[in-house]
């Protein structure tokens, strides 16, 4: 599909690292967990998790050359987007626990607001390195963790998640963040016999299943994912361990 012109109407600083861009267009069929290819014409194009469909929003972290340029966009700047691509999170049950690490919380916050609209009970665990890197909260009850203890519970998301799962039942855990964190969360969910879904995003070229760059074994993040059942993900020895670099060489995460 051809990219669609999208003008930035606001650029809000979420934290030290992340800007939340809002556009003058909507992607009404986009669901939480899906992504769009975002093109800064003449520069580069990157897959971005959709942070909101109407109006279209992306939470862009200042990481890497093109992301830095995208995250420093101002009101009136023009980008070109195509999508949505990929498989959205599957709604399971009524009581959801969202677990987000860093800017991985962006698609979960979109999931939280969509879930709340359809009567789901939402609770979230949001982790970051420090208070400076915390994303804005979602609807529902929030638990905060920071590695340095500058906000909320000291430690990573597991510091809150383990005791929480001891005393409460959830229908599904939705998780997005660093892959090693998602691996730990998927294992923990399995131990507690709770369904989980994780969102595995990898370096992509085409975005629609042709180039093979985003593969985890025989699974393709762009068309089979990015969302995947946690137990299914655990079957892949590469999950949380290795991915492909720009040339397609398998490298450690």
């Amino acid at each position, binding site marked *: *599909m*051809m*990219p669609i*012109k999208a003008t930035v109407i606001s650029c809000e600083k979420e934290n030290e690292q992340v800007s939340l861009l809002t556009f003058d267009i909507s992607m009404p069929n986009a669901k939480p967990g899906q992504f769009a*290819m975002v*093109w800064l*014409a*003449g520069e*580069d*194009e*990157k897959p971005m998790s959709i942070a909101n469909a109407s109006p279209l929003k992306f939470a862009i972290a200042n990481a890497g050359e093109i992301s830095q340029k995208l995250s420093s966009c101002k009101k009136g700047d023009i980008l*070109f987007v*195509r999508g949505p691509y990929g498989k959205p999170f599957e709604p399971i049950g009524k009581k959801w626990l969202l677990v987000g690490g860093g800017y991985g919380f962006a698609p979960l916050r979109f999931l939280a607001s969509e879930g709340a609209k359809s009567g789901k009970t939402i609770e979230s665990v949001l982790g970051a390195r420090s208070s400076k890197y915390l994303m804005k909260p979602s609807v529902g009850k929030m638990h905060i963790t920071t590695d340095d203890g500058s906000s909320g519970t000291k430690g990573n998301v597991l510091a809150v998640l383990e005791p929480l799962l001891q005393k409460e039942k959830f229908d599904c855990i939705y998780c997005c963040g660093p892959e090693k964190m998602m691996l730990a969360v998927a294992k923990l969910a399995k131990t507690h016999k709770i369904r989980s879904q994780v969102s595995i995003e990898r370096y992509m*070229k*085409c*975005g*629609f*299943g*042709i*180039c*093979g*760059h985003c*593969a985890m*074994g*025989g*699974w*393709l993040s762009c068309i089979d994912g990015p969302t995947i059942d946690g137990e299914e993900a655990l079957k892949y020895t590469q999950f949380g361990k290795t991915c*492909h670099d*720009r*040339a*397609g*060489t*398998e490298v450690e995460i």
Partner: protein
Amino acid sequence: MADLTTSLCGAKMKNPLVLASGIRGNSAGLLIRAAKEGAGAATSKSCSLLAREGHKNPSALEFDSYMVNAIGLSNPGVDAEVHEISRAVKEAKIPIIASIYAGSSEEFALVAKKMSQAKPHLIELDASCPNIHSEGKMFSSSPESASEIVRAVKKDVKNIPISIKLSANVPNIGDIALSCQRAGVDCITAINTLPAMIIDVHARRPVLANKYGGLSGPAIFPVALRSVNEIRNSCSLPIIGGGGVTSGEDAAAMLMAGANAVSVGTALYYHKNAFAKISDELQSYMNEQGFSKISQIKMQN
């Protein structure tokens, strides 16, 4: 029930469908996946002597009847790829075709020699990638340059059959195929993507970061049929024919044009279970027409 089995350069195939090079990448996991999805054989994405990151994004765009890509031959390099191909040969349970790319005939011979350690069933010489013109002329553009790389590779690799992938963007694909046959090649693969570009009139720029790319998908199917038929009329080698095949009837037409096996690439974007769909449709067509074997699928004289 019509029998879909066939063979290509000595390799037995459960059906004539071959995963085309460039689709689904370099890794063993994805070649094994193609086998599980019902491919009769699978070709890896081309690999070069050294690792390449390929072009920047946007590197591919998809439309209703065509796709344009300029991935730019990203690959981990032949030494890493040999491990992937070895694993695929052992685990995929279908013939594996290793595609290689190089910038000179000497380098083609070197990469082919290295790749032969993985013991693929066939090595395909990517002599016609349209996305890297700035890095050198397309080898398949003349009978001389195409046959030169065939000779160089055949001199160094004697234990594995060699195919050469040709471009339809020439006035004489039949002559080029014939010259490759005379140079000793064992098989012809045709066609590669066709030179193309996409312009976004709102951005007022070419969309592909590389500006130019290769056209594939249903839009190129009639071009592929004619090219394969011209090759069949000029040379007697087995042909892996493809370009825009998305249905069993397309595959039957490709076989009638003169192909011995049919490559399937962009169809994987259009249909989630492309191999199963195309082979089921081909079988239905054969049953309907009273063809019991693949070799019977021919045009009327």
